[in-house]
């Protein structure tokens, strides 16, 4: 409304004037002054009613009343800060945990890639590579260049095929200013952005000629642009050095697109290249040939867009022939008994393949936080019921004064809405922080933050709780009816048998849930301890590891010279005990697997076991540096050179499996030709290679200098004191050799191994957290309920004590109550926990699902919580002064 609303005062003024005018007129008609005044009033009727009608006219009365309820609700919440804080925090934790976990689940398992029409975008998958091909990257997503070339011609089935491949196993060296840094970079086909339908925020994307011309340009992700260039609008045209190669920044991809690497956030993309520095996976050229010219190297990843009207299954079926033909280019026909690889297409989820690894733990976690929410909600309901039962007098009085039941209900709803709004806002803030933490713990650098779907789900939960919290206490609140206002006895209020029974059931249920969470949490914590205490066979104390890839080595000799010099300089640093290099960083999950021959023959394993072996290329002093004991022979030393006899160290398991009952020293690996012949010179104790919880596999260590190819190596340093404090000196040494080389993922060796079990670690820590949270919630709920019930029985206790009950008897009366509840809760909870533990069993390590200790601890824990929560109210009950209690009647 634009005009100023007429004030009720003005209206009242008009009525006053009416009465005066009327009285005047009546006097003129001959009525006495006194009489005229009264008559005018009588004629007018109910002045108040008229004013009230004026006030209500055109006003949104309902809103007006709600505003009044809001003010009243805020006052009453303010008056009971203990209750308000408890309820709001409980709600915030319960809802926040759910929002956080659901947000992660949504991002990891449900969300599609942020591309145009994601339904028609698919990941290209294979059942594997042909037998004689070799593979880098994940077995199921790595494909060869001929396959890419064949598939992209099938326009009728796949309207676009986009190839991409990382420029390194992890991060690559990038230089923008003076300092070298790390970035995550992919080399992609020319149609990468156009095919996916990813728009550019700045500049241009790639075009097909960029792929054929190997244009020296780069496109940045919006995230990297923001983080590294402070969203500089003039970034296009600037130069960035990737592994020392100058590239011009051509564009910035639209915000939200972080590439197609699962769980990784790609910083920059460059067109497919044809140079040794920028080869697939950072590998050197093989016999002078790039990845595209080695047809049996399965190293490319692919994502494709289905042609309109073609389903994933149809596409796979129609392309299998083309795929198989391309797969065997240069390999000849499949070997006898070899199963050719099978093509398939996978949905373009944001995190392809994460379903397998994370699906189960995430769903378990979701169930856990669901339980926590359930406990939290019942807690709040009980708190509200208790609170509103003590307000029965207030409500009765209002009913007696003429308030409608509807009005009371509205007020309760408004109060619960206030609570839920506060709790919800806090929950959202909590979830934002928690998702960031979860991302860090899980080593997922793509965003897991809640999006609109998560927001919607959270709002629905909050709305439901608001209604629940409003309705649940309503019955208790108005149960007294208007008559209660006239009564004063505490005994009449709140001891109705039905109501206390509901309360008891709820408490017992909470205890049962608590047992379940404690057992689950306990099992996972034991798992965590077991995992952390796995013997690695490596002394990780004082070990610092970082990657160094030499950008411009084209021959093995150059590479060896570089690393030998680097090791020499690092050994010279004060505080350094030992230094070595290795091709695959131990604990990182990377390994070379093959089936090498022993003494010129396919190794025969008793009982037909696997002949697979793992190997690694390492430098001199490797075993000494990592503290791996040599049980026979010797380790690599200075006497081993590129030109001396090729030597290897094998693990005990290798010796047991492939050379049983003989002295393995002096036996040969390969051994068909002089060129590949390697002599075993030592046997080392078994130790962990790829991860902390791997099963041991026979292991061969080769000397890296005898490989004859340039390699990217990781440096391992054994130092005195904190390994990380050596990092700056190491950085200086590396920079003194080449300023373009960054240290890749420097960390302690211990941290590297812990990363290999990060999923279990995170899961166990979260379970621990939610277990503790549940216990705290149950304890507060229990305390609140018991305290409330004791409060209600004050009069009864007073009477009992007045007629001679002793303190101990009263305490026991209260304790017995909660012990019975605990007993019921445990009886229900233990079988439930067994079911849950069975479902968890695949996530456990070194502990059984029926681990008695975990159950005992859980039951004991619940009992302790119950006792502690009852002790205070019981003590209070016993110290009730009978006189005061009776006077309260």
């Amino acid at each position, binding site marked *: 409304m634009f005009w100023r609303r007429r004030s009720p005062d003005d209206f009242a003024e008009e009525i006053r*004037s009416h009465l005066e005018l009327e009285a005047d007129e009546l006097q003129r008609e001959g009525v006495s002054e006194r009489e005229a005044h009264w008559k005018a009033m009588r004629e007018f009727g109910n002045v108040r009613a008229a004013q009230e009608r004026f006030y209500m006219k055109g006003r949104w009365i309902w809103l007006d009343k709600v505003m009044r309820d809001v003010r009243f609700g805020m006052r009453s919440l303010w008056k009971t800060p203990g209750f308000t804080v408890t309820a709001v925090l409980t709600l915030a934790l319960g809802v926040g945990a759910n929002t956080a976990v659901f947000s992660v689940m949504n991002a990891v398992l449900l969300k599609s890639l942020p591309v145009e029409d994601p339904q028609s975008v698919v990941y290209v998958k294979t059942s594997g590579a042909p037998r004689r091909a070799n593979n880098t990257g994940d077995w199921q997503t790595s494909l060869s260049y001929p396959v890419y070339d064949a598939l992209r011609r099938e326009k009728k089935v796949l309207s676009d095929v986009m190839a991409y491949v990382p420029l390194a196993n992890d991060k690559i060296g990038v230089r923008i200013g003076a300092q070298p840094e790390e970035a995550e970079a992919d080399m992609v086909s020319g149609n990468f952005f156009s095919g996916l339908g990813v728009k550019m925020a700045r500049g241009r994307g790639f075009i097909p000629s960029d792929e054929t011309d190997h244009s020296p340009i780069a496109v940045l992700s919006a995230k990297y642009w923001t983080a590294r260039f402070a969203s500089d609008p003039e970034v296009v045209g600037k130069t960035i050095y990737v592994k020392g190669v100058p590239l011009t920044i051509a564009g910035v991809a639209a915000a939200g697109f972080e590439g197609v690497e699962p769980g990784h956030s790609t910083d920059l993309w460059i067109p497919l290249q044809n140079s040794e520095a920028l080869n697939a996976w950072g590998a050197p050229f093989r016999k002078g040939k790039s990845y595209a010219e080695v047809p049996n190297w399965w190293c490319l990843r692919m994502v494709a867009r289905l042609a309109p009207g073609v389903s994933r299954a149809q596409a796979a079926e129609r392309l299998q022939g083309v795929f198989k033909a391309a797969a065997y280019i240069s390999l000849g026909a499949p070997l006898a008994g070899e199963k050719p690889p099978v093509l398939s297409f996978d949905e373009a989820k944001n995190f392809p393949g994460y379903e397998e690894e994370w699906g189960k733990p995430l769903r378990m976690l979701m169930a856990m936080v669901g339980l926590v929410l359930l406990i939290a909600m019942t807690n709040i309901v009980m708190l509200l019921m208790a609170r509103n039962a003590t307000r029965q007098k207030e409500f009765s009085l209002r009913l007696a004064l003429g308030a409608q039941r509807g009005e009371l209900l509205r007020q309760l709803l408004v109060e619960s809405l206030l609570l839920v709004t506060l709790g919800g806002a806090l929950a959202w803030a909590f979830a934002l922080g928690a998702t960031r933490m979860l991302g860090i713990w899980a080593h997922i650098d793509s965003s897991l933050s809640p999006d609109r779907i998560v927001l919607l789900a959270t709002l629905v939960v909050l709305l439901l709780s608001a209604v629940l919290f409003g309705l649940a206490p309503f019955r208790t609140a108005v149960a007294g009816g208007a008559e209660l206002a006239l009564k004063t006895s505490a005994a009449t209020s709140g001891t109705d048998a039905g109501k206390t029974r509901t309360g008891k059931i709820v408490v017992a249920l909470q205890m049962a849930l608590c047992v379940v969470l404690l057992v689950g949490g306990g099992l996972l914590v034991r798992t965590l301890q077991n995992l952390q205490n796995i013997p690695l066979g490596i002394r990780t104390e004082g070990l610092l590891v970082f990657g160094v890839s030499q950008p411009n080595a084209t021959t093995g000799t150059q590479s060896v010279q570089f690393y030998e010099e680097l090791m020499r300089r690092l050994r010279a640093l004060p505080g350094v005990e030992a230094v070595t290099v290795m091709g695959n960083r131990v604990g990182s999950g990377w390994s070379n697997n093959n089936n090498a021959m022993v003494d010129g023959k396919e190794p025969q394993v008793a009982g037909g076991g696997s002949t697979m072996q793992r190997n690694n290329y390492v430098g001199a002093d490797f075993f000494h540096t990592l503290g791996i004991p040599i049980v026979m022979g010797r380790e690599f030393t200075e006497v081993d050179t590129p030109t001396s006899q090729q030597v290897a160290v094998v693990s005990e398991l290798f010796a047991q499996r492939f050379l049983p009952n003989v002295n393995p020293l002096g036996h040969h690996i390969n051994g068909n030709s002089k060129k590949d012949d390697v002599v075993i010179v030592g046997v080392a104790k078994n130790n962990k290679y790829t991860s902390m919880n791997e099963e041991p596999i026979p292991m061969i260590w080769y000397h890296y200098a005898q490989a004859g190819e340039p390699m990217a190596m990781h440096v391992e340093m054994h130092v005195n004191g904190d390994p990380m404090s050596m990092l700056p000196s190491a950085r200086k040494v590396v920079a003194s050799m080449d300023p373009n080389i960054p240290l890749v993922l420097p960390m302690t060796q211990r941290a590297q191994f812990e990363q290999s079990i990060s999923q279990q670690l995170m899961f166990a820590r979260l379970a621990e957290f939610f277990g503790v949270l549940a216990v705290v919630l149950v304890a507060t709920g229990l305390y609140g309920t018991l305290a409330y019930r004791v409060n209600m029985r004050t009069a009864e206790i007073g009477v009992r004590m007045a007629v001679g009950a002793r303190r101990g008897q009263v305490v026991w009366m209260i304790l017995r109550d909660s012990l019975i509840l605990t007993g019921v809760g445990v009886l229900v909870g233990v079988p439930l926990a067994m079911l849950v533990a069975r479902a968890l069993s695949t996530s456990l390590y070194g502990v059984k699902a029926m681990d008695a200790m975990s159950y005992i601890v859980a039951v004991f824990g619940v009992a302790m919580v119950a006792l502690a929560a009852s002790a205070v109210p019981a003590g209070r009950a016993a110290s009730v002064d009978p006189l005061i209690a009776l006077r309260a009647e």
Partner: protein
Amino acid sequence: MPTQDRSDDRIALLQGTLDLLILKTLLPGPVHGQGVARRIQRQSEEVFFVDHGSLYLALQRLEDKKWISAKWGLSENNRKARFYSLTAKGREQLVEKISEWRRLARAMAMVLDAPLED
């Protein structure tokens, strides 16, 4: 509720007729609320009984619709009073309402006066 005694021949106003009566009363010139009440009673020869509370709310309603406008002023005996006058829009409405009412009344009369048919 008004509590004064009702004389038998007074009848309550039909729904919606009060607006028309107010507009008609204001036709000659500005009048305050009490004056409107008196005039309606007088001109209907005391048949209509006007509930004063309703009258003032009706005045307010008409003012909100901008059919009438109001202004505080002084009465002939120097009392402060709120004077209402017709707006152009109100005048139009009055003409329309009068003809509407006449048609209604005529139709009512025709039906009521019609000879009984069987």
